[in-house]
């Protein structure tokens, strides 16, 4: 019998348990095929070790019945190679042998064989052993599918938890790269280059003074919806939301070679998209409001900070403090940018829209830094 899917059983294609019979004796192959098909199993055959290995790589079976004494690669060699490959190591192998001595049994065990069957083959013994291995196979499959279901559930929980901070795309990437245990941000504490963007609402104090609590909350929700959607659109990570201010980081938790450009586009779009909202508030409440933004780039520490009771994914460092100070100085519709970051984005700033503020000593800072102000009107295209 040539290497082939054993013919003659119409149920073969539907069988969910596939056995590969490897033997150079066609009569032995025919005998084993008949018995296994009689048990409702699909059977493929190979007449030597080399074609058996090719078959296993191409279409891994659920069980291999493997003759030991064959021309070319012996059953021991084939067994060792199947068990030595991570992709096929879990496939059970039964060595079918007329070698009775203990030494050969030991060689089989050393090669990784799961069970032995003596030749001449007793059909009752063959069927009993194969059925046992099939039960084990079914149990393992069931456990594996449960494990996969639990894994999907776990990743979904992580994705949901972190989608509060990051864009859905970034959440997908983090969960895809998450290891077997723990949250994906664990152990990611690191010092890295970041771009920090702070935005807040100019005119917020008047807004809270002139409106009922319910109205203030609704307006803040409207404002934050615009800002968070914009941050997510550019794959920014939201680190903090307090009062009317929002802190967004770029180049974290994954590298973004175009972090500066992303931050710049985010800032412009925040101002532009909030324009219609501000106009509507002006009309409804007589309020003059706008978004002021501060941005800075530099080294910062990123990681989970807190206790077992409360922790948050946090960004700490000079660029964050500087961005916060710049945000406080920024007028409505204005983006203040620290010097080094401005150098990285100046090619994107339309002519006549930027002005230097010279070297500025920020509150709480001993040294002055160059600051640039960019006017980002509501009609600015991001």
């Amino acid at each position, binding site marked *: 019998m040539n290497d082939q899917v054993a013919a003659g059983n119409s149920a073969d294609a539907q069988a969910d348990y596939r056995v590969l019979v490897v033997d150079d004796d066609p009569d032995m192959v*025919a*005998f084993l095929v008949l018995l296994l098909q*009689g048990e409702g199993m699909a059977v493929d055959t190979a007449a030597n070790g080399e074609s058996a290995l090719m078959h296993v790589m191409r279409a891994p079976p659920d069980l291999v019945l493997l003759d030991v004494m064959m021309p070319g690669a012996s059953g021991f060699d084939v067994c060792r190679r199947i068990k030595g490959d991570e992709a096929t190591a879990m496939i059970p192998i039964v060595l079918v042998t007329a070698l009775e001595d203990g030494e050969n049994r030991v060689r089989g065990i050393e090669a990784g064989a799961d069970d032995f069957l003596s*030749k*001449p083959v007793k059909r009752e013994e063959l069927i009993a052993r194969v059925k046992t291995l099939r039960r084990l196979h079914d149990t393992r499959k069931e456990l594996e599918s449960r494990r996969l279901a639990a894994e999907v559930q776990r990743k979904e929980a992580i994705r949901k938890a972190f989608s509060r901070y990051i864009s859905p795309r970034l959440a997908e990437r983090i969960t895809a790269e998450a290891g077997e245990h723990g949250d994906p941000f664990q152990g990611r504490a690191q010092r890295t280059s970041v771009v920090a963007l702070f935005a807040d609402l100019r005119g917020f104090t008047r807004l809270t003074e002139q409106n009922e609590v319910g109205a203030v909350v609704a307006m803040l929700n409207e404002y934050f919806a615009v800002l968070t959607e914009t941050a997510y659109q550019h794959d920014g990570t939201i680190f903090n939301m307090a009062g009317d201010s929002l802190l967004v980081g770029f180049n974290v938790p994954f590298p973004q070679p175009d972090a500066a450009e992303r931050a710049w586009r985010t800032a412009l779009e925040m101002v532009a998209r909030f324009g219609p909202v501000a106009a509507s508030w002006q009309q409804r409440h007589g309020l003059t409001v706008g978004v002021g933004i501060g941005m800075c780039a530099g080294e910062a520490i990123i990681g989970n900070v807190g206790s077992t009771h409360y922790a948050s994914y946090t960004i700490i460092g000079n660029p964050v403090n500087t961005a916060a100070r710049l945000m406080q100085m920024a007028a409505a519709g204005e983006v203040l940018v620290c010097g080094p970051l401005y150098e990285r984005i100046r090619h994107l700033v339309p002519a006549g829209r930027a002005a230097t503020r010279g070297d500025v000593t920020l509150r709480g800072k001993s040294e002055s830094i160059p600051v640039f102000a960019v006017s980002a009107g509501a009609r600015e295209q991001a």
Partner: protein
Amino acid sequence: MTENIHTVIISKDLADLIPVFFRNRQKEVEALRSALAAGDFEQLRQLGHRMKGVGNSYGFAKVSEIGKRVEDDAGAANKTAIDACIGEYADYLSKVQIVYE
């Protein structure tokens, strides 16, 4: 002429395989004779080993028994004993009678 007939009871689900099985046994006799004439004891040992494995799997205990003797005698390079085994094997194949149940 019934005294030398060897009756073997075989499971009827093997019936379709038996004609090919016997053709291969006849070829095996020829292969044994050729290997013995060539003094190829390794080939004889392998043929004996195969007979031992397949014979009683189908229900032909005698084939396995002769096969084991051929394998052992080949290991001992005992030409005379192997020659006797081949004769016995050929005789057995010519007289075996199968009953399916």
